């Protein structure tokens, strides 16, 4: 369990360093950086490389935005196994629904209760 915390810290931190290097050295905007990281997560999932990474680093792999791409592919593939090519569309948000729903629900609640700063 302690080892899991350690690897979550190291792997999660390293993914953030990659993002920081893309912004500082590659001179990309944060929007470009995050989009590229999401695509990278989806491509890694395509080669079945992201799941072992989650087993090994836990939240270090599920918290960075790369896991969003991985979960989209995972949802699409699990439906595709049942329904063929159609499942790619119907299963897309199967795993990521919690992130998107949470962002919408809490975004709206936040807009009701908080006033803009500055």
């Amino acid at each position, binding site marked *: 369990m302690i080892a899991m*915390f350690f690897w*979550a*810290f190291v792997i*999660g*931190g390293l*993914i*953030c*360093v990659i*993002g*920081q*290097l893309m912004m*500082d050295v590659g001179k990309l905007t944060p*929007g470009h*950086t995050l989009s590229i990281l*999401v*695509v990278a*997560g*989806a491509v890694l*999932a*395509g080669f079945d490389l992201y799941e072992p990474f989650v*087993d090994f680093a*836990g*939240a*270090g792999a*599920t*918290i*960075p*935005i790369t*896991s*969003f*791409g991985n*979960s*989209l*592919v995972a949802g*699409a*593939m699990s439906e*595709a196994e049942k329904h*063929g*090519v159609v*499942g*790619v569309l119907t299963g*897309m948000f199967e*795993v990521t*629904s*919690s*992130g998107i*729903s*949470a*962002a*919408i629900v*809490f*975004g*709206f*609640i*936040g*807009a009701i*209760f908080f*006033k*803009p*700063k500055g």
Partner: protein
Amino acid sequence: MKPENYKKLASKYEPKKPVFKNCIRAFWTGGLICIIGQAVSYFFIFFFNFTEQTVGNPTVAFMIFLSMLLTGFGVYDRLGQFAGAGSAVPVTGFGNAVISAAIEHRSEGFVQGVGGNMFKLAGSVILFGVFSAFIVALIKSVF
């Protein structure tokens, strides 16, 4: 002067970005957010019977809830100035992008302001994530 030459000249006088320092900051703040995420994961595993494989979902939702509180009280933006990618790359940064856009545009009304602008910043992440996942899954399911 040609634009390319001007760019070269301007970059000579630009202050150098402290890349190494930024990376150290991104590393430990991003890592710390993942440690909090790991603690939340164990909480859901022990008290709500999730498994190691399925625990990602409630953890992400809870982290976005935390990011709503921090964004609402103005803490997350200050953290972002310090941590750079360390606060932008974790899913809390995605939550922050949605929630701060929602709060910022509430003066334009809930339908046109909040509803219309909520995904202004985070939309590109969803677009490219979904589109690339579609291509990847399509290729995988055909072959």
